[in-house]
């Protein structure tokens, strides 16, 4: 069965410092990976997906099939990045996503 692991429940980073939120997955096929974000008092929303290869709000994530990882990175943290972040795995031919347990990111001014 597929699984998503986000090892850090909480992560605190100083403003201006680099950010890395870890995500590892287990799936034997070709995965689709997503990062979702939930800001305070807002709905959960898509941040980025690996097939788009975009940088959204300065965040990037690269799919590493060898390490089965999809870590989210940003070179310089901003206070508005404080939020809950979820990594999610999609599998071929399956409409459902498997979510990780989430990482709460706090940016320290």
């Amino acid at each position, binding site marked *: 069965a597929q699984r998503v692991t986000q090892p850090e429940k909480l992560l605190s980073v100083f403003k201006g410092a680099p950010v890395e939120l870890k995500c590892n997955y287990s799936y034997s096929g070709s995965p689709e990976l*997503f990062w979702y974000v939930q800001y305070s008092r807002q*709905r*959960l*929303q*898509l941040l980025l997906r690996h097939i788009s290869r975009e940088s959204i709000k300065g965040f990037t994530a690269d799919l590493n099939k060898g390490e089965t990882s999809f870590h989210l990175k940003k070179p310089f943290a901003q206070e508005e990045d404080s939020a809950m972040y979820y990594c999610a795995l999609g599998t071929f031919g399956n*409409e*459902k*996503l498997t*979510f990780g*347990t989430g990482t709460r990111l706090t940016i320290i001014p």
Partner: protein
Amino acid sequence: DVKVTQSSRYLVKRTGEKVFLECVQDMDHENMFWYRQDPGLGLRLIYFSYDVKMKEKGDIPEGYSVSREKKERFSLILESASTNQTSMYLCASSPPGRGGSNQPQHFGDGTRLSIL
């Protein structure tokens, strides 16, 4: 912009009551989902529907049922509410995947349900 609307932001019910949570989407999406969101446990899928009157159990369906009589509406039903069903409930919708790939899900604001 996709709009997923959940009927209540906050709901307080008593143990043993039958509880209905409603969700409506306006983008003609085939897929709709109900999740529980609990601290430390992330999002767990309760039920999924891929078409009208079609449903599939998720990871934690016990104590819940669903109804999808119209494409835009997906209801979650707690048959006999219990205190361990106190949680945040999220509804989501998505179009069907293309060529086997997944489409992003669009979420509602959530319903915070308390069972006393």
